Structures are given as structure tokens and as C-alpha cells.
């Protein structure tokens, strides 16, 4: 009995460490401006969130969005749009150049990247098309299973959000 308990106690942290090492991480990186500004990095292992959700209360396991049902008839079109974009060659979809601001929407591989730069602020968002498709398909008429949403986020790789305003910066990336 003591041996089994010892093995169990040894295995549990090993499984935990294994999960951490093999997981996709969403990393939130916030850098405050100024000489005393803090730099906060929060790595969130997606597989642990998925595992934790198993034991979470029902409200946390499901995101209710009944409003989308009103537009449900357009979801197949949205899926088709994503599929067409996935198949399209890389290139600039939209570019707006004004005196103080530029906006660029570009298809790069399996992502659509949006870049906005007005001199003071820079926003870059990479939207993974596979993740959007997964999210669209995960909608069941009432809402989403949270685990499906987490799985969809895990489809992304690299920087997904980068916002810089003055000397403050927020980055969200998946690796």
C-alpha cells in the first residue's frame, strides 16, 4: 500500500510537469512605460486549462451566446469566407494610407494579419483562419463549449496580438 502511495505521489508531479512541458502556452506580456514600469509575463498552459475545465462548474464549461443564433443562417457563408481565404494566395487584401495612419490587412499563410499604425499607437493582430473556422463550427445554436474555444486558441502560433502605445506594450502570443 505504501509502495503504491509512493508511486502515486511520484507520478502525479511527473504528469503535471509533463503536461506543462508539452503544453501550448498563451503568454500575455505586458510592459508598462516609464523607468519604474513593470514588466509582467503570464504564461498560461492551455492543456492545463482544458484539464482544469473538467473539474470546473458547468457555467465555466460553456459560454452562452444565444445572440449568434439570430445570424445562424449566415454561419455557412462565414465558413465559406474562411475557406476561400485559406485557399487564396498570400497578399494584401486591404491597404489604407492616410497622412497620419496606415491600415493593412494581409493574408499571410494561414492567418489574416491586421496592422494599424497611427504614429502614436501600433496595433497588430494575427487571426488564425483555422481557429476561426473551429470556433464557427463549435457553435451549437446556443453557445460554445469552453474547451473548444481553448482548443481553437491553441491553433494559433506566434504573436496574435501586439499593441504598442507610447512606451507601453502588450503582447499575446502562443507557443
Amino acid at each position, binding site marked *: 500500500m505504501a509502495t503504491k502511495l509512493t508511486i502515486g505521489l511520484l507520478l502525479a508531479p511527473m504528469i503535471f510537469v509533463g503536461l506543462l512541458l508539452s503544453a501550448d502556452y498563451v503568454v500575455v506580456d505586458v510592459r508598462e512605460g516609464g523607468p519604474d514600469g513593470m514588466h509582467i509575463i503570464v504564461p498560461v498552459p492551455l492543456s492545463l486549462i482544458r484539464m482544469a475545465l473538467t473539474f470546473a462548474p458547468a457555467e465555466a464549461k460553456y459560454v452562452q451566446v444565444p445572440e449568434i443564433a439570430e445570424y445562424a443562417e*449566415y454561419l455557412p457563408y462565414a465558413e465559406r*469566407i474562411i475557406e476561400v481565404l485559406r485557399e487564396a494566395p498570400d497578399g494584401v487584401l486591404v491597404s489604407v*494610407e492616410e497622412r497620419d495612419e496606415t491600415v493593412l490587412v494581409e493574408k499571410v499563410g494561414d492567418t489574416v494579419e491586421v496592422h494599424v499604425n497611427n504614429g502614436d499607437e501600433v496595433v497588430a493582430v494575427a487571426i488564425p483562419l483555422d481557429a476561426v473556422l473551429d470556433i464557427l463550427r463549435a457553435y451549437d445554436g446556443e453557445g460554445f463549449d469552453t474547451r473548444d474555444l481553448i482548443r481553437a486558441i491553441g491553433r494559433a502560433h506566434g504573436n496574435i496580438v501586439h499593441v504598442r502605445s507610447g512606451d507601453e506594450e502588450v503582447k499575446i502570443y502562443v507557443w
Partner: protein
Amino acid sequence: MRKRTLTAVALAAALLVSGVAQAQQDAPWLHIRVTEAGEDGSRVAVNLPVSLVQVFAAIAEKEIRKELSGEGSRIGFDMDDHGIRITDLRSAWTELRNAGDADFVEVEGGDGSVKISRAGDKIVIEFDGHDGDAKGRVEVPISVVDALLSGEGEQINIRAALDELIRSTTGGEIVFIEDGDTTVRIWIE
């Protein structure tokens, strides 16, 4: 023998994949350019795969059908009610189509002139502001109008019109508008 078969299969697969990739590269795109003159002028470029525009056309068609059937629209597409029925439009178009090259409409007003005419296999809409500011030309192939009105009853066939527009205008300009310092160009290539 097995090695040869495998090589042949691998070659065929490679050709197929490169063929699909080439087809994607060669697929037509809709291009829109809006350019304001001057160093500070805005420049807008939109490039969309035509297959994407076809999806938008399918949505528009669905919305128009709803509007015509009185079902209403959920995404805010409103058809202006000018009392023109599609069936009447179709009959008028049949008459105009058979009329050959002619000026169908000429409007001279204080603000400028508008002329709609048929030139060969195209309907040409030209407008010209008297102050010389706004000036434009829109060319629509006759086959596109045919396709647009190919639906039945009070239905218009946007998808067919778009398919025909792609087929007949690829490589050519569809819209060219000059309005003061602003130029708008739309073409498929």
C-alpha cells in the same frame, strides 16, 4: 516495377499539387483603388479573390430575396422602393437589348449630365459634372445584365451576373470615376 509505379504516382501527385497551386495563383481578383491627389491624399487599395466576392454576392442575393418576399433583412440590407418591379425591368431590358447601339438615356441638368448608351456588347454609363469635378464611366457587358435578369418573377440573379462579369471583364476596367481630386478604379484581373 513497384519503384516505377511509385515514382509515377509521386510525379502525378506533384503535378496535381502544383496545378492546384497555380490555379489558385491564377484565379481572378477584384481590385478597387481609391486615390486622392496630393501628398496628403488618402490611398485605399482593396484586393479580394473573386471567389470571396462570390460569397458576398450569395449573401446579397439572399438578402434581396428576403426583402422582395417581405421577410425583411437582419443585416440591414435595404432595397429602395422606387416602385420598379423586376418583371417590368426585364421586359424593358428585352426591348432595349434588341434596339442595337443607341443612347437610351440623356439627362442634362444644372449639376451635370448623365448618358446611358449601348455601344456594341456593352452598356456604357457616363456622367460629367458641369464644373468639371465629377466625371466617370461605368461599362457593363450586356451579358451581365442578361445574367442579372435571368431569374424568374421578381428575382434577380446576382451570382450569375457576377460570374458573367468575371468571365467577360477579366483584364478590363469596369469602373473609372474621377471626382475632383479623387479617382476610383475597379477592375478584375
